């Protein structure tokens, strides 16, 4: 395994602590997004939950992003980051190119340059 692919044990312990320490899902999910921001050195992170009836993504927790950006409007599954049918990860390395975002101008205003979307699924 290449060095860059290894997970630091301290980081693994930190994530485990955050997940197991809180018995409240709001605190746990918010601190998980905070850890993601801290560990990855990224601008922000959000955990969405899919509402299958409305076909919308609802925010469960978010860190690092502005209130204005979070309140930008409903996030429709069909119009937001276009998910692959089998819900694979989607990487948009440059938000100014392509048409894969529902609110590209809002993302640009926020100063977002790239987005990684990782579906959390269960079988």
């Amino acid at each position, binding site marked *: 395994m290449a060095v860059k692919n290894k997970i*630091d044990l*301290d*980081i693994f312990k*930190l994530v485990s*602590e*955050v997940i197991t*320490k809180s018995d*409240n*899902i*709001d*605190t746990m999910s*918010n*601190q998980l997004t*905070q*850890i993601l*921001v*801290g*560990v990855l*050195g990224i601008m922000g992170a959000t955990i969405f*939950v*899919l*509402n*299958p*009836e*409305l076909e919308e993504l*609802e*925010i*469960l*927790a978010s*860190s*690092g992003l502005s*209130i204005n950006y*979070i*309140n930008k409007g409903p996030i429709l599954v069909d119009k937001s980051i276009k998910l692959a049918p089998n819900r694979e990860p989607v990487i948009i390395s440059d938000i100014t190119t392509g048409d894969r975002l529902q609110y590209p101008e809002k993302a640009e205003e926020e100063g977002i340059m790239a987005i990684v979307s990782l579906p959390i699924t269960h079988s």
Partner: protein
Amino acid sequence: MAKQKVLVPYNFTDYDGKALDFVIQRFADDKSIEVTLFNAYVPVPEIELRNSPIMEKISRNLGFLQHKIHAQEGEIRQAREKLLQNGFSKDRVHYIYRAIKKDVAQDIIDLAIDSGFDVVVLNRNPSKITRFFSRSVSNIVINNLKEIAVNVVT
């Protein structure tokens, strides 16, 4: 005449904006009403540095995030400003912005009881699938507050 204390939990969403509009319409002209906006944020987790450069880097990044959370206080000040611009005097509008102690619902309940609030104004976000994972804050507050009026703005 003793002032009536109104607690307005405020979480920066459009639904909270509606609750604020309700407070303006209902209470702005009533000089006996005092309003407190309340937000409890989730603080960044404390981490042990363990003499690890990686943990130190994470700590720095989390420090930046904590700074952003503190800067968010400006948003609740703006909400206060909206009340001031719509008929409330400065001595009638306060705000509390602090780290969460237990959970949002319990913090609202504790504050309402401990500080002697007479009314709590909540809002409800319809069709929230996230309630599947966590109980509705408004339901918990309604079920646990006795002798305190709770208004739910929908």
